[in-house]
């Protein structure tokens, strides 16, 4: 286990706002200056370009000079040495563009493909490429700051040996045993001295009694004190027992060891990879899912050495999917090297992750309902993952503190991943009835004075409809 320096990252929300402002300025500038030439470098919308860039390109390209997986795109508008059409074709289908025999493309292929492999064909339209280029060719000024943002990412101090609470407990135990030994020894000495004194004074010796008998005698002599002590002890046990029972089934801060020491902060904070790049099924399935190894390979085909653990952890991906890091190619089932794509025939041992967010089998939770439809931010349940090493369950208090960094988070009080936590959120979360045709229809039915039900129209009184009012507290929403 590593301890994590929980220094807060720089307010990345603020950066985004600055991005947005800049982008809007750019758009305004173009509109005002009336530059309407339909060149691919000029006509695009940098705001949507930014989104597109982050989704499709950012995992391999930076807007700097730095080569990540592919070349850095800073200044591409000046150095692109071929036609606009060729750029579109190159992005949409690199191999086909190469076959066209374009000289500039050939140069690109010679320079990069040998080392980094072919760029994946991107499913973006010509207009979208225009948007991306608009964003890329006008890199936000603050980008430098963003690059430096990695300095604000949490420093995971891996050298520091874990100092667990159990270590303290052992010291405490040793001290306690020492104390008892000394106490018993002292008591023996005291007794001997008393005996000597008595012998000297000619009094009767103390009766030869065991420690227990003497303890009993002492208790008898100090009944009030011992009773009080006993009462406090029983009270302590009750309170401790109760809180222990209340902790059963709570998994806040649960962070099991993983087969691969995957550092979220490096990927999310420093490399700014969007959550849904890896956990894309959160948007289309009930499971957020753990990314398959071929998704890792999109970047790690090129990035073979990690910042923290070197090649050790990344090699585990290669072992699973059958990748030869020396040749940069995949191994097939026969052990032959030289394949450009992962081979189904390769019989690698899959990576067996330990599930972090466990729900009981009878709970049917759907990510897409909450993320795609409800528009909930990942942080509302998972905390600020950009500060984590391996996956963990964020305690609710920690999530509540994120509200400044992530406006719109719903603050909750019940422990994370308990049913009370779910229901509390369902009670607070509002549903926007106007922006989705599905909810609009339901809203109409409620408003319809001919048909609407009096009893339910009270939902409309406070001008908001919560998830609960739409049935979010009903058993069969989650249990079936």
């Amino acid at each position, binding site marked *: 286990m590593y301890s994590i320096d929980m220094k807060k990252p720089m307010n990345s929300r603020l950066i985004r706002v600055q991005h947005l402002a800049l982008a809007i300025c750019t758009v305004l500038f173009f509109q005002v200056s009336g530059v309407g030439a339909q060149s691919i470098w000029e006509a695009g919308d940098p705001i949507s370009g930014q989104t597109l860039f982050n989704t499709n390109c950012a995992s391999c390209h930076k807007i700097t000079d730095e080569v990540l997986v592919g070349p850095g795109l800073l200044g591409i508008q000046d150095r692109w040495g071929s036609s606009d059409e060729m750029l579109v074709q190159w992005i949409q289908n690199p191999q086909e563009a190469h076959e066209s025999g374009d000289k500039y493309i050939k140069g690109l292929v010679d320079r990069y493909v040998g080392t980094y492999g072919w760029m994946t064909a991107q499913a973006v339209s010509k207009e979208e490429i225009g948007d991306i280029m608009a964003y890329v060719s006008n890199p936000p000024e603050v980008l430098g700051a963003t690059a430096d943002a990695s300095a604000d990412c949490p420093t995971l101090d891996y050298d520091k040996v874990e100092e667990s609470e159990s270590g303290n407990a052992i010291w405490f135990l040793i001290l306690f045993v020492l104390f008892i030994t000394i106490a018993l020894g002292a008591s023996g000495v005291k007794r001997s001295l008393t005996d000597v004194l008595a012998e000297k004074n000619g009094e009767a010796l103390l009766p030869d009694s065991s420690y227990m008998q003497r303890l009993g005698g002492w208790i008898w002599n100090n009944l009030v004190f011992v009773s009080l002590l006993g009462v406090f002890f029983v009270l302590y046990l009750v309170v401790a027992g109760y809180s222990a029972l209340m902790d*059963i*089934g709570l*998994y806040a801060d*649960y962070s*099991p060891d993983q087969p691969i020491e995957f550092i979220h902060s490096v990927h999310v904070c420093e490399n700014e990879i969007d959550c849904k790049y890896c956990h894309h*099924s959160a948007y*289309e*399935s*009930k*499971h957020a*899912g*753990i*990314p*398959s*190894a*071929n*998704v890792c390979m999109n970047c790690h085909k090129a990035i073979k050495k990690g910042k923290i653990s070197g090649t050790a952890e990344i090699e585990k991906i290669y072992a699973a*999917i059958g990748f030869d890091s020396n040749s940069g190619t995949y191994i097939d089932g026969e052990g032959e090297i030289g394949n450009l794509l*992962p*081979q*189904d025939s390769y019989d*690698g041992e*899959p*990576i*067996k*992750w*330990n*599930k972090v967010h*466990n729900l*009981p*089998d*009878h709970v*049917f939770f*759907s990510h*897409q*309902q909450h993320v*795609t*439809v409800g528009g909930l931010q990942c942080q509302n349940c998972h905390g600020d993952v950009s500060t984590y090493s391996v996956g963990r369950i964020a305690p609710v208090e920690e999530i509540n503190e994120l509200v400044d960094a992530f406006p719109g988070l719903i603050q909750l009080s019940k422990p994370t991943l308990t049913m009370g936590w779910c229901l509390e959120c369902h009670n607070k979360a509002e549903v926007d009835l106007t922006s*989705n*045709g*599905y*909810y609009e*229809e*339901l809203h109409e*039915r*409620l408003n*319809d004075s001919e*048909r*609407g*039900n009096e*009893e*339910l129209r009270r939902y409309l009184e406070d001008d908001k409809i919560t998830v609960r009012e*739409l*049935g979010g507290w*009903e*058993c*069969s*929403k989650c*249990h*079936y």
Partner: protein
Amino acid sequence: MANTKKYWSGLDELDGTDAFQEIQSKEFQEQIPVDKFLADEKLNSTTTGRRDFLKFMGFSLTAATLAACETPVIKSIPYTNKPAEITPGVANYYASSYYDGMDYANILVKTREGRPIFVKGNAATGIGAGKANARVIGSVMELYDKARLEGPTKKGEATTWSDLDTAVSESINGNGRAVVLSNTIVSPSTRKAIESLGVEHIQYDAISYRALREAQAASFGVNAVPHYDFSKAKVVVSIAADFLNSWLTSTQFAPDYASLRNPNGGSQSKHFQFESVMSMTGTNADVRTMISPSEEGKVAAGILAVLKGGAVSNLDAKLSSRVKAAANALSGSKGESLLIAGTNDLSTQTIVAAINQLLGNYGTTIDLERPSQAFRGDESAATQLIADMNSGKVSTLITYGCNPSYDMPNAQAFNSGLAKVSTSVSMNGVADETASRSTFVAPDHHYLESWNDLSLRAGRIDLVQPTIEPLFNTRAAQESFLVWSSAENSDWYTFLRSQYNGAYTSDALYSDSDWNSAIHDGNMVGNNLSESPNYTASIETSLAERKVSKVKGGDMELVTYVKATAGAGQHAANPFLQETPDPVSKVTWDNYVTMSKSDMVALGLNTYIAQEDLATVVKVTVGDKQIELPAYMQPGQKPGTIGIALGYGRGSNGENIGQAAYQTGEKGQHLMLDSGLPMPIGVNAFPLTSNSEGNTIYASYDVNIEATDREYPLACTQIHNTYMGRDSVVRETSFDSYLAEADKPKGKASWNMAHALNVHDDTNHDGVIDARDKENTSEFDLWHSHPVKDVGHRWGMTIDLTTCTGCSACVTACSIENNVSVVGKDEVLRHRDMHWIRIDRYYASDYSLEKGEDEGVGVISSYGLMEDPAENPQTVHMPMMCQHCNHAPCETVCPVAATTHSNEGLNQMTYNRCIGTRYCANNCPYKVRRFNWFNYKGHSKFENVNPAHDSLARLVLNPDVTVRARGVMEKCSMCVQRIQSGKLEAKKAGTAINDGEVVTACAEACPSNAIAFGDLNDTGSQVRAISENNRSYHALEEIGVQPNVFYMTKVRNVDSNEA
């Protein structure tokens, strides 16, 4: 008017048997077996004292508490190289097709993470309505049978494909005669693959229609089974053809037939059925007449005679009048009628062909230009083959898609011949009767693992595509043929694909994109690989008429038939299908001898069967063959005839055909025969069939039946869950009564009056408060109204009793969709079946007050006559599931609020809250709640029947539905998992839910569209319209529980005095 008619759940209720009375007086039918427990002798010798008991309790409590503290470490293993089309948690659907030599259906296969978990009809592009039946729906289970062979075998020992291929190729290319024996192959490419072997190919069908084909050949020159179009047949006369269940490719007929049954448009087809056994089709007939099998030909001849202006001969007066009525109905609907016969007798089929020709049905309801390609088997060739095998003339026999050692009438001769064949190869997937007797087994893929093309009729090719990687080291049979024929390219997919390449079909019809879209749709059109014959009619019936008139019936005649669940034996090891009750008899897990009450009484057999009342075993002798089976009283069975279902008694020689194919005892262990072999379910009746004039004859006109002193328990759900004589459950009327009041608003027509209660108020404003002052039940509320009306969704269901045929496809679909536990015969006997939907089958008396009036019988006597057991009762099928009452009685009695009402009108069941008091089941007026008496997925009693037990069969479970634990209640949830996902899809699309987008498994499976599901609050929805129709009513309306399930009054097309 027929609403004075009385209904009984069975003759048990009608006769008021002791067993019935006893059950009726109890809420729970099974006693808690305290006496049995205390009588256990071991109890006295137990050494566990009170203190020990307390210690155990303390230890268990501590252990359980400690175990709960442990954080379970759950592994989560993502794909290494994820296929692009799979997203974990999202189902994929693939269009495919089903054909097993009997059933044919276009299907959609639902897969989750690459494993098929559900099969349904492909309504979008399927033939006809694209519906499947219970057998097809249940077939997904068979993919995960652990009895499937894991690779090729030689003499029962595992071998390699290459060794097998060498040996088989050598044998085929040797000097001896090699033969491929198969069921009817409807796949053009498979036929080519077999042809490539260059050996003789003989086809036969377990259920043969050779006579039907021969009759077409003799009359029209086309040797094929015609295609029947029931959607145009306004009059259907069926002579013992169970066309809704098993006759020909019945999956197509049921939806077509049902489309003309709905009376809302002012018309309804008329259906006459002449038969001996009460078949599923017979229960749906408007006019059902009991005949002996020996009279089938005479009925046909009688109809022909009437049509020609003559008189019916050779039949008794009552039967003659029925024949005449049927003939008149047919002649009144020329070109829009159908006469069909189930028999495999050439003479009868010739007469039937002549009648249809006379009626002008050929070219309208009967299509011979594009006939069916199915059922082209020739059992006379198969019989000759058996003779040749026995005389040592065959050196290689390859059996494919068939099980002749089991289902041939002369299976014994086949088996002795098989022993003389030096190289016998079976391609069956399990070591069944034929495979275990063959030298080699070259196991074929399961159909969900294979590629194939099927052509049921010319002009359309249906495609079969794999939906999962082969689980075992099996190989497509077609690939085996190609390998053995030393074809250059033996890859079956390439071979199949090349059939549809430009190079092959001269017009370059199929490019890759065409092929891909054909795979997507599950079919392609235009490729004419099957012939379209021209036909001319020249029908000579005099010989046939003479022949049928000479048929003599015996004192006792036998009919064999095919059940809706087991088929002809293909599904013997399928626990879901074995536990689906037979639509007519409601017996599970067995076959039996169906008999009329009078015959049973004459033989002194037990007529009423219950948990403690066992059926008497009878010995049936046909020629030199004898079988022993329990006798079951079947109303509607023609006295003097018996019926036995085919397809049972599989694996009687101890073959490993699947663990659910054998009987299990009280502790779940397989029961053993005296011979030490496991006891099969039921007895094989194929040996009782015979061969005559080259055709397999499934009836026998002279059998002997005698009682034995053995008794046998039959697990029958017939008298379960009675309605204690409350007659407001089923509503029925005749078609003319319906028409007379078809325009009346809901609740006003005499056949569907709203239920009213007397009130102490002058509601009719006549100035007096008396018995005429009534108010509709809907005006009374005992509970607070649940505010679901018109707000949000209100999920509801409508069930049309007119079109429901009782086929039980819904039961099977529901069980597989909702992980409903299979509990086995012993538990069904204890009334602990877990089905969320059941089909209540009610018999009716054929007497009514009106009829009594017409006949001048007094009212009191009429009531007496109405109680007279109907020998040939009318039948109503009523699907019954949780009615999702808005005033649910179950909800108010739950002490822990485990069952609650949702604001979408659903009665929710929360398993993890339920503590199993069973108050709710006690208080349910519909008796639809089911209690988990056991841990079905873990208790050893169920390891041989419940799929959740073994790690392979468990793959069929639906991951979207909880597998329920012991001690909780469960019931129909209206497929809430589908509702939830349907709502989510709509939200993602940002649109309101369109009607029909959310549909339950039962509604989706219903071949006759009797069940509809949707949002009652959606003013444009189908269920809303139906619920407002004047035929719709609530079952048990008088108790005022306001269900969200509506039934529609059954309309039977009979004259009111007939009804």
